[in-house]
């Protein structure tokens, strides 16, 4: 038994449709310790479906299979729904892309955070409130008491995403899955939110799966990068080695982004090859 937090071996996610089976994830394998792992790929590469399968949030119509899908030695696929629910939010948490859609619009931010905490721990209302306020302060919200009573539409995107992080971290998860946590934010705010996330992950010794389409961002933030294409992992490498990526898809993804000072007209485009998907 390895000491890894997460073991994923040959994970497959299939969606049966009228016109045949769509294979969104086709045999993905990786393992995660207490580190920051980036999953990168274009839309439709299966990166988000991989994250959702680990969380157990795949659409019920889909089939999820794996040779192994274990969190801390617990087999997630055979786990009864009740126990899986207890795990979700408590030991494994997920941050979604857009705080505008992922926070409940009719419940104040503070109450949403308190709800998460009281679902997983037996604490008094007063104590839950105290801890929610502490958590809001920990994500660098300047006036936690005021923000506690605000509704999601009353805060900016950056603040909404910080509230989301607060909510996800309050129960002290060991594994955090962040699906494009900063894609909906402005570049400058993006870095603030990442810095907060980075600090909390390091302080609490969490494992982090960071899903993003932005290869450059991921490589500057994560320890290790998994590159996905058409539902498969095409390359795994340490983030520091990204410049020496071997797979033409990874190289193409890196190359096609405009860079300040690089005078390349036209930009190199990605020539997709059928064998990458094989």
């Amino acid at each position, binding site marked *: 038994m390895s000491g890894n937090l997460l073991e994923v071996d040959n994970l497959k996610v299939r969606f049966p449709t009228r016109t045949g089976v769509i294979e969104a994830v086709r045999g993905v394998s990786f393992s995660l310790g207490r580190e920051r792992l980036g999953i990168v790929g*274009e*839309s439709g590469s299966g990166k988000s479906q991989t994250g959702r399968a680990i969380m157990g949030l795949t659409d019920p119509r889909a089939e999820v299979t794996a040779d192994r899908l274990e969190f801390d030695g617990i087999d997630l696929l055979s786990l009864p729904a009740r126990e899986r629910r207890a795990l979700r939010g408590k030991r494994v948490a997920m941050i979604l892309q857009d705080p505008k859609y992922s926070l409940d619009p009719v419940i104040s931010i503070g109450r949403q955070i308190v709800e998460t905490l009281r679902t997983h721990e037996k604490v008094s209302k007063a104590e839950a409130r105290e801890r929610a306020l502490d958590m809001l302060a920990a994500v660098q919200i300047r006036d936690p008491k005021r923000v506690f009573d605000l509704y999601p539409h009353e805060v900016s*995107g950056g603040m909404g995403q910080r509230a989301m992080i607060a909510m996800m971290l309050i129960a002290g998860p060991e594994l955090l899955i962040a699906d494009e946590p900063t894609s909906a934010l*402005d*570049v*400058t*705010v*993006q*870095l603030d939110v*990442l*810095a907060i996330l*980075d600090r909390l992950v390091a302080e609490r010794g969490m494992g982090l799966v960071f899903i993003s*389409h*932005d*290869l*450059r*961002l991921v*490589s*500057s*933030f994560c320890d290790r990068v998994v590159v996905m294409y058409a539902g498969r992992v095409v390359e795994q490498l340490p983030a520091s080695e990204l410049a020496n990526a071997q797979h033409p898809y990874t190289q*193409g*993804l890196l190359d*096609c*982004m*405009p*860079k*300040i*000072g690089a005078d*390349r*007209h*036209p*930009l*190199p*485009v*990605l020539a997709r090859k059928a064998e990458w998907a094989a």
Partner: protein
Amino acid sequence: MTAALLAEKVEVVFDQFRALKGVSVEVHPGESFGLVGESGSGKSTLLRAIAGLAPVASGSITVTGKPLGRRRDKAFYRQVQMVFQDPYGSLHPRQTVDRLLQEPLAVHGIGDSETRIRRALEEVGLSSGFRFRYSHQLSGGQRQRVAIARALILEPSILLLDEPTSALDASVQAEVLNLLEQVRRDRKLTYLMVSHDLAVINHMCERLMVMQNGESVEQLTAADLVSHNVAQDYTRRLLKASEGFVRVG
């Protein structure tokens, strides 16, 4: 030389909120000019004010020496066309590509639609097989190509581009940026382009303006950006942010 586009002290006010606080910009004919800033900086509002989609409270806008009134006439839209950010929201869901491209021709009473549509699709790199598809049958990049074809079909001289690639994957973004550069070269177009991505603006534009809180922070050339020859702290912060995440300590 008359400017292709000249905006002077443009103010846009929504109720009590001043979205644009007296912004001036001059775009030369054939130039590609970029607007950068965070959300709420007013960069899209300036574009929309020029297109007649935002209420101009004061200031003046001139297109090739001709001042614009409160309403934009048909002649204006033959000269100035716009491409929007979201290719999912900017194409009519119940119209085929053919119908979408037919519309501007019908509005402006231009005949010869058959050859024009065929040419427009060819120019943006879509085969004739796409002509009778609906927008939900297209990918994001293909939709943005249709949106560009729709803007080009009236043969405008100025294109207003509002974050034309920010909803697209990096690889598709490269294709669309290349297409935009290609048609600009072929047709000698003038671009006014909005983006939050400094690298994209640096790639596409010769000059740019940095905006914040409805005001102009500074105007730069692409070369200034490369050599970090910037005067304002805000621009420096944007430049730093574009380099990715840096871990402290």
